[in-house]
C-alpha cells in the first residue's frame, strides 16, 4: 500500500508534464492486470475473458445491462416449444470476421460442441444445461435442454457465444485462442498470448442491440502492476485502466486529467458458517444463536464506507439484488456487538470461543471482519490461503467460518449463486433439505411467479438461520482520460462498443 501511495503522489507532482494520446490515432489503449489464459471464451474463466468475449463474439440473445430487458442479437425471435425445447429464428445476412456466413449450422455446431463434456469447456455450468441443438432450416434452430432450465435465456444472453462452424472445426480452441473469429463488434488483428491484444472495429457489424462500435482500434496490454498502469496513464501511453483500488481511484478522481467512474459488480462477499457440523458436531456454528451472533457482530456499513467505498452496498440476502428471484424481504441483522455477546452467552459461550477462520482474497476486508469477531469474543485464527487450497479444504473437511465471494458469472439470476451453494454440493455448509427442495422447484419451474416465490422461501430461511452472513457487494473503478467517454454497467463488463471519444 505504501508503494502505491508513493508512486501515486510522485506521479501526481509530475503530472503537469504529461502528454495525451489515443484520440489522434483513433486507438484506445487499455490495460489488463491479469494474463488471459486463452481468448477462446469457452476456455477461460476470467473477467478479462468475458470482456473480450463480448467484443469479439455475439450471443443469440442480448440483455440490455441498463434495463435487464432481453433483446434479439444473432436470434431475432425465440419461443419455448415445451419446457425443454427452445426454438430460435436467426438473423439473416450476418457474416463472421473471416467472411463465413452465419446460419443455423453454426449454432448447431457451437451448441453441440460446447454441450459435450468431453470437449472440456472450462465453465461447465455455462453450457451443461444444454443437451444439443437441431437445425430446422437455414435460419431456424432448436436448442434441446437436459431438463427445464428457466435461466436458459439469461445464459444465452451471456456466456454462450456463437462460433463459425467451419473455422472452429479446423482451428479448435487453440487456434481460436490465437486467431479468434466471431461476429462481434470488434475483430482481432493481433494476439500475443498473455501480453497483448489488438482489436479493430468490425465495419460490417450487423444491427445489433450492442450498438455500433465507434472507436477504430482497441489496444490492450497486460500490465500486472497497478502503479505501472497509473504511470502509463500519466505518460499518455494508456487511455483507460479499470479495477483500480479505491484509495488510488480517490486520488486520481481529484485530478482534472482523469474521469473516475465507479460501478457496482454482481460479486458479493459473505461469510459461510459450518452449520452442518462438517468440521465437528460440537462446532459452535452448528448453533443458531452463534450464527446470529456472528451476523450481529460485524459492522457491514463501516466496511463498505471505509474499505470498499464507491457503489458497494450492504447485502442481506444470499444473492445480488438485481438478480431474478433475489428477494430482499429477509431477516437483516443490524450491527449490535452487545447483542452478539448476549447471544453467544445464551448459546453457552459467555467467554466466547476460538475458531479457525479462512479467506483467499481481499486480505484487508477479511482482517477487518476478523477484528469485529474478536471484539465480541470469537477469537479467530486467521488463515489466508491460495484459492485452490481453501477450496480443497472446504470440499474435503469444510471450514468453521470463511470469507468467500461470488460473482455469478454476471448471470442475472439467483440460480447462479444461491442454487450453487445450498443444494448439497461440496461447498454447501448448511445442508438444509428444505432449502434444497425449494431451490429445486425455483430452478426448474417455468412460471416466473413460482420461481420468485420459492427463491424467496429459500432466501428467507437462509437469512433466518444465518447460514451465510452476506456482507457487501463489490464495485469496480474505471479510470480514463478526458478524451474518453464511457459509462460502465453493473455487470463489470468493459464494453468497448459503448465507448466514444470526447
Amino acid at each position, binding site marked *: 500500500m505504501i508503494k502505491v501511495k508513493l508512486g501515486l503522489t510522485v506521479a501526481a507532482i509530475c503530472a503537469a*508534464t504529461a502528454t495525451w494520446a489515443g484520440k489522434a490515432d483513433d486507438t484506445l489503449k487499455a490495460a489488463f492486470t491479469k494474463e488471459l489464459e486463452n481468448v477462446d471464451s469457452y476456455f477461460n*474463466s476470467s473477467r478479462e475473458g468475458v470482456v473480450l468475449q463480448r467484443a469479439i463474439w455475439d450471443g443469440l440473445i442480448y440483455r440490455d445491462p441498463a434495463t435487464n430487458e432481453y433483446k434479439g442479437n444473432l436470434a431475432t425471435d425465440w419461443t419455448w416449444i415445451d419446457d425443454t425445447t427452445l426454438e430460435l429464428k436467426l438473423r439473416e445476412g450476418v457474416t463472421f470476421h473471416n467472411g463465413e456466413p452465419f446460419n443455423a449450422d453454426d449454432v448447431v455446431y457451437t451448441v453441440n460442441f460446447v454441450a459435450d463434456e468431453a470437449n472440456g469447456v472450462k465453465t461447465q455450468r455455462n453450457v451443461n444445461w444444454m443437451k444439443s441443438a437441431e437445425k430446422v432450416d437455414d435460419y431456424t434452430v432448436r436448442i434441446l435442454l437436459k431438463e427445464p432450465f428457466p435461466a436458459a435465456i439469461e445464459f444465452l444472453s451471456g456466456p454462450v457465444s456463437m462460433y463459425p462452424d467451419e473455422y472452429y472445426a479446423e482451428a479448435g480452441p487453440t487456434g481460436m485462442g490465437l486467431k479468434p473469429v466471431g461476429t462481434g463488434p470488434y475483430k482481432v488483428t493481433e494476439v500475443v498470448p498473455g501480453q497483448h491484444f489488438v482489436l479493430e472495429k468490425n465495419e460490417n457489424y450487423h444491427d445489433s442491440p450492442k450498438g455500433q462500435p465507434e472507436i477504430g482500434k482497441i489496444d490492450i496490454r497486460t500490465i500486472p502492476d497497478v502503479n505501472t498502469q497509473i504511470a502509463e496513464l500519466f505518460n499518455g501511453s494508456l487511455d483507460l485502466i479499470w479495477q483500480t483500488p479505491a484509495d488510488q481511484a480517490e486520488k486520481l478522481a481529484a485530478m482534472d486529467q482523469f474521469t473516475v467512474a465507479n460501478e457496482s459488480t454482481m460479486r458479493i462477499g459473505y461469510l459461510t458458517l459450518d452449520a452442518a457440523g462438517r468440521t465437528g458436531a460440537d462446532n459452535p456454528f452448528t448453533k443458531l444463536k452463534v450464527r446470529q451472533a456472528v451476523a450481529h457482530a460485524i459492522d457491514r456499513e463501516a466496511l463498505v464506507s471505509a474499505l470498499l467505498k464507491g457503489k458497494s452496498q450492504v447485502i442481506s440476502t444470499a444473492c445480488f439484488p438485481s438478480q431474478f428471484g433475489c428477494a430482499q424481504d429477509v431477516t437483516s441483522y443490524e450491527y449490535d456487538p452487545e447483542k452478539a455477546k448476549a447471544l453467544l452467552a445464551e448459546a453457552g459461550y459467555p467467554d466466547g470461543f476460538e475458531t479457525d477462520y479462512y479467506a483467499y482474497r481481499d486480505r484487508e476486508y477479511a482482517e477487518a471482519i476478523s477484528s469485529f469477531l474478536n471484539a465480541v469474543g470469537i477469537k479467530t485464527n486467521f488463515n489466508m490461503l491460495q484459492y485452490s487450497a481453501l477450496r480443497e479444504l472446504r470440499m474435503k473437511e469444510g471450514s468453521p467460518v470463511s470469507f468467500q465471494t461470488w460473482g455469478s458469472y454476471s448471470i442475472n439470476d439467483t440460480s447462479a449463486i444461491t442454487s450453487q451453494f445450498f443444494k448439497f454440493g461440496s461447498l454447501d455448509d448448511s445442508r438444509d433439505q428444505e432449502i434444497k427442495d425449494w431451490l429445486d422447484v425455483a430452478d426448474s419451474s417455468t412460471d416466473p411467479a413460482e420461481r420468485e416465490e420459492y427463491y424467496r422461501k429459500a432466501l428467507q430461511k437462509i437469512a433466518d438461520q444465518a447460514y451465510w452472513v452476506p456482507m457487501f457487494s463489490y464495485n469496480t473503478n474505471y479510470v480514463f482520460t478526458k478524451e474518453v467517454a464511457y459509462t460502465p454497467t453493473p455487470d463489470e463488463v468493459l464494453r468497448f462498443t459503448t465507448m466514444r471519444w470526447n
Partner: protein
Amino acid sequence: MLQFIAKRLGLALLVALTVSIISFSLLFLSGDPAAALAGETATDQDVEAIRKLYGFDRPMLVQYWDWLSGAMTGDLGESYYFKLPVAGLIADRLQITMLLGVCGITFALLTAVPLGVVAAIRPNSVIDRLALFLSVAGQAMPSFWFGLILIVVFSIKLGWLPPSGTTTWAHFIMPTIVLGYYAMPAIMRLTRAGMLEVLSSDYIRTARAKGAPEATVLFKHALRNAIIPVVSLAAVQMGFMLGGSIVVESIFALHGAGYLAWESIARNDLPTVQALILVFSLFYIVFTFLSDVLNAWLDPRMRAG
C-alpha cells in the same frame, strides 16, 4: 578433463531431477490443482471434469513419470492455463529474461568491479565512501520502489523512456538498471574486500619493491586474484536474475520467464512450472560450472582440484 566434465554434468542433471521431483511433490501439497485450474467461479462439476481431463486422479508417481518421459523426448507438455506448448511458451519468455539477465549482470559488473577496485585503492576516500553509500542504498532499496522512482523521473517527468513493455531497446534500460543495481552491492563489496586483502599481501609488496608498474600490480597481480570469489558470486547472481526477476518483470510488464514462473505456481499450471524449474536448475548448474572453469583459468592452482 573430459571425464571430469562428464561426471560434473551427470551430477548436475541428477541435481536438476531431484529438484524437479521435490518441487513436483510440493506443488501438489499447495492445493488441489483441478480446483486452481477450474478457477474461482467453477462448480464442483467443473472441478471434477478438469480432474479427469488432466488425469489428476491418477497416482502422483504415474503423473510424474509421464512428465519425465515426455521431457526426455523434448515434449514438455501443454500449458494448462494458456493451452499452448510449454516449450514454445518458455522459449518466448526466456528470451526476454535472458536478455534482461545478461544486461543486468553486465551493468552490475561494469559498475561494481571498477568501483570496488577504486574504493580498495583509496580506502576512506570520497570515492570509497560514495561506493559504500551506493552499496548500502542498493541493498536497502526495494526493487519495486527503485523501479517506480525511475518510472516517475524518466517516463513521466522527463518523458525519455517508456514505462513498460518490450517493443524497443529503450524499454530495457530501466529494468536493466533496477535489476543490475540489485546485484551490484554484493559484487562491489566483495571486489573491494578482495582487493584490500590482496593489496596488503606479501607478493604485491614484492612486486612493488621490484619496481613493477602500478597498473601491472593492480590489474595483473591483484585483481586477477581478488576477482575469483566475484566470478562465483556473479554466476549465482546471474542464476538469481533469471529466476528471480519477478518484481522487475512485473513492474515493467516484461512478461519474462520469472514472472511466468510466479504466475504459473499460483495457477497450478504444473507443466509450465515443472519445465521452468528444470530450465532454471539447468541454468544455475551451467553458470556454476562455467564459473568453476573461469576460476580455474584465473587461478592455475585450482586446476589441480
